[in-house]
């Protein structure tokens, strides 16, 4: 198993130019999820703050219904993509497990984490090359984004179960969530609040990948397209 992934700590990697990191299912998942979450955020906000009213007969419109339908479709898409992603964590390469397994008992990982933090604080220029995620990115993905995504799916399907009704699959699997929060309105509130956690992640994540692409010696953005991390030295 991959404990830490700075390329430099392994002497064999001295002249490494590229590694295949993100297998196709991971890449596909990433971009499907990107679209789903973008849709979820936009439609979620519209659910919270509906657009101005339509005119005419109610039967002639389904505007809010479509907004919610888009949200639920994207919600299902997100959930299915995550199921496949989890499956892939079992059968895929080492990098496919980085999202779920963080080597927090590994001293080197922590050293690299601190090293990363310092470089982001402009205390030094980063010299280490990483094959998969750098430790900070990995921590943010595993401890911030992944739990938030699950939180959204659990609370989302719990709310979805209220419409689907008692006895529906979502009620059977997620119905218990409502009383856990107190009542349905609380679930809405927390679901809504956690959206912002995801928004924050996305802001930082997008910035970071672009920045890394420009400032470090590894390829970043293209890696999620081609799967290959290339090194410029």
């Amino acid at each position, binding site marked *: 198993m991959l404990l830490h992934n700075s390329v430099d700590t392994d002497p064999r990697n001295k002249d490494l130019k590229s590694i295949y990191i993100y297998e196709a299912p991971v890449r596909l998942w990433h971009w499907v999820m990107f679209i789903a979450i973008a849709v979820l955020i936009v439609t979620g906000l519209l659910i919270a703050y509906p657009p101005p009213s339509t005119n005419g007969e109610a039967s002639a419109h389904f505007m809010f219904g479509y907004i919610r339908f888009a949200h639920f479709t994207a919600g299902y898409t997100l959930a299915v993509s995550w199921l496949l992603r989890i499956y892939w964590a079992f059968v895929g390469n080492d990098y496919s497990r980085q999202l779920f397994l963080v080597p927090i008992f590994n001293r080197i990982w922590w050293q690299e984490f601190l090293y990363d933090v310092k470089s982001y604080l402009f205390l030094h220029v980063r010299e280490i090359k990483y094959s998969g995620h750098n430790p900070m990115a990995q921590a943010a993905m595993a401890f911030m984004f992944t739990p938030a995504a699950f939180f959204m799916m659990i609370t989302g399907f719990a709310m979805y179960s209220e419409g689907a009704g008692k006895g529906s699959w979502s009620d059977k699997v997620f119905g218990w969530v409502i009383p856990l929060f107190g009542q*349905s309105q609380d679930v809405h509130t927390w679901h809504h609040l956690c959206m912002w956690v995801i928004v924050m992640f996305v802001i930082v994540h997008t910035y970071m990948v672009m920045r890394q692409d420009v400032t470090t010696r590894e390829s970043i953005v293209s890696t999620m397209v081609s799967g290959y991390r290339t090194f410029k030295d």
Partner: protein
Amino acid sequence: METFYDVLRRQGITRRSFLKFCSLTATSLGLGSYFAPRIAHALETKPRTPVIWLHGLECTCCSESFIRSAHPLAKDVVLSMLSLDYDDTLMASAGLQAQACLDETIAKYKGNYILAVEGNPPLNEDGMYCITGGKPFVEELKRVAKDAKAVIAWGACASWGCVQAAKPNPTHAVPIDKVIFDKPIIKVPGCPPIAEVMTAVVTYMLTFDRLPELDRQGRPKMFYGQRIHDKCYRRPHFDAGQFVESWDDEGARKGYCLYKMGCKGPTTYNACSTTRWNDGVSFPIGSGHGCIGCSEDGFWDKGSFYDRVTGIKQFGIEANADKIGGTLAAVTAAGVAVHAGITALTRAKLNHGKGFGKDGSGE
């Protein structure tokens, strides 16, 4: 002894329509025709079940609601279907004579009476925020619950705590399931519950001699299984995206959806949009005001009744998800912008001098 059947007969109902009533009851409860004769038999023969109705911290509007029941009529429930042996709001005797009614009923019907609780016990100040007979109400509640067959929690007070338990809950009022642990408790929430829902819960227990099926939160599924929103007649407007935008606007006059006015129908489990209130005349939404979620746990502390995105108690009364999350996201974005700026600056400096990175190429 008068039975349910006697009541109906006395109201001029024939045996034939009585049997029809039984089969209708059976069908409406989803039991099928097989149950009709059993219902009839039960109604014809059973003596009246004693009920003790206690009052804690409350506003007595659950009692007020109860007496408004149109089917069955409250008077028939109280005088003919069950035996209301103790209820301070209605009983003739007072003081020692009233206390004697309580003691006698408990002694005579040990394990066979129903305890109905309206309001709830405060725990602060040794319970002396609600004193009955010179003692804390919570003592009386526990004493009567001990020998009860089953307990009904009327309204939001007994079920969840209601207004007196709203922040900061100065008396430490608690729902009754926080002090009664060993009895089945049927929660019939609402502030107050609908009269006909109250009497239906009681008649269910008398008719079928069993407790209604309860949901995860202890409420009868038959009335609390769906949200107001699931069967709201304004739902087509919701789906169409037709909302009341401000009070008394064009949409309000056309009966558009009250979602934007803070309607809590989407998060409230109750029978209002179907059973409706006061013999089916209307319900909150039907008269232009959003649902305030009065049958939900802690509905007082979810922020303003007029907010769609409600407040978060944990962060103080002011905050809501967008205030907190939006601020954090804005701070994040600003942080990113600053970071990007510094990055650019640093890189410019490095490029100017010896370069950036191992090879000094700047990449």
